């Protein structure tokens, strides 16, 4: 029984893989490249959104404001103490990124396996498959729940959206990140559904691949946001 490493790549355009393999379809390598390029392009406005928020944050922090009563310029920035829960949430997100990568490599391996199965005299063992995708989805939901809880903790400490400029930014940055992560959770759900809807392994591999890179980006973005809020004061 042959086994194939999960790092096998599929480059041969002659090989068709499941449903995406009609004669009138671009080959797998092209579709993957195009999807990844699309993701890279799509991440650019997301980056610009957070660059814009970051610059507003930096400007607002340093901005003296005119107190009309005294005609003096005063600084009114009060830093927010971030809930410790955010560190746990960070750990959850990083862990989910790890599992996401395992899911991505897993389906890459299956694509390679299908490729091998096209070659005569080779068969693949049906290994037990851990549902890394489902684990990632679960951890994503745990993160979002954790963020929600952290906001409740902030509110309990008296920091609402409009309490101080610093609290506005905490909710803004973490909230916008959460919205984008929800998009990633939705993509994971779609990837899971694609399996149930019997889409080809090639199509599912592309969906998982693109979602994985998006997911890793979201984890990196979260670390950036946390550092900005904690250290840039």
């Amino acid at each position: 029984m042959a086994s194939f490493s999960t790092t096998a790549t599929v480059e041969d355009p002659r090989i068709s893989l499941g449903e995406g393999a009609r004669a009138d379809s671009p080959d797998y390598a092209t579709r993957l490249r195009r999807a990844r390029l699309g993701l890279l392009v799509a991440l650019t406005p997301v980056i610009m959104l957070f660059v814009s928020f970051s610059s507003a944050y930096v400007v607002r922090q340093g901005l003296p404001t005119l107190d009309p009563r005294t005609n003096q310029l005063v600084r009114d920035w009060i830093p927010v103490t971030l809930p410790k829960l955010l560190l746990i949430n960070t750990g959850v997100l990083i862990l989910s990124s790890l599992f996401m990568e395992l899911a991505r490599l897993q389906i890459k391996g299956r694509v390679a396996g299908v490729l091998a199965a096209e070659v005569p005299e080779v068969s693949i063992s049906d290994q037990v498959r851990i549902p890394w995708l489902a684990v990632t989805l679960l951890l994503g939901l745990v993160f979002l729940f954790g963020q929600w809880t952290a906001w409740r903790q902030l509110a309990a400490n008296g920091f609402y959206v409009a309490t101080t400029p610093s609290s506005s930014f905490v909710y803004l940055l973490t909230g916008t990140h959460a919205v984008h992560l929800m998009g990633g959770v939705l993509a994971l759900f779609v990837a899971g559904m694609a399996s149930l809807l019997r889409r080809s392994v090639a199509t599912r591999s592309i969906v998982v691949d693109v979602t994985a890179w998006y997911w890793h980006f979201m984890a990196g973005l979260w670390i950036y946001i946390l550092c900005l809020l904690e250290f840039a004061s």
Partner: protein
Amino acid sequence: MGLILLVVIWLITFISTYFFIAKTWWLPVGASASTAGIDHHFTTTFILMGIVFVAAQVALGYLVWNYRDRGSSSSKVAYSHGNTTLEVVWTLLTTILFVGLNLATYNLWAAERFDPAGANAVRVEVTGMQFAWYFRYPGPDGKFGATNPELEDASAGGEAALGLDPKDPASKDDVVTGTMVVPVNREIEVILRAHDVIHSFFIPQMRFKQDAVPGLAIHMHFTAIQTGDYEILCAELCGLGHYKMHGMLKVVSQDEYDKWLAAREAEKQ
């Protein structure tokens, strides 16, 4: 058709240029110390850009007429993908013209905006609000008194509109008016404030414009060199009354100003 295009383009060009040169509608006569420099540079820009404008439009009209397809009697097309030397030359020339024109304004801009007002300037605080301008003079103590937004009452006019705080001793002698009176040939320091939204303090004949921004106190200066009455306009959209938010600048002799101010200050005692 080529000829019609030439005629239409040239006519539009010459008619527009005529009205620019004839100054049928032109910058209002300036009455500030900055007028000479600004107007001179305006004319320089105007002449240079005017030459470019006329040359380009005349060339366009000429080219579409001269190179029209005349059927078999047309000359062969000059097949060409361009000329690198020409590209470099006109890029350099354009850069020198445009950037040079702007760099030439450095001293003017510096005098207007980099340098603060002199110590001898007459200070006037100008406050914009929906939809009026108020002017405040510091009075004999030379200090502007405190204002408190909670005390503002625009319908009461004057001191109440500014929210002048009567508890601050410095505000007792502040003179608040609805008309801006300044002496001629003296530098005027304007401190611009706004209560609600962004307004803009525009006196066309003083070649003066500056936004009044809530949350900021912006210091500017100008010097009037001619007595007279000059209209003040709001030049930043501030709401439904934007079109009627205007005031008056009265430039008078130093003597008249002193008398006027003394009378206003006397009322405060």
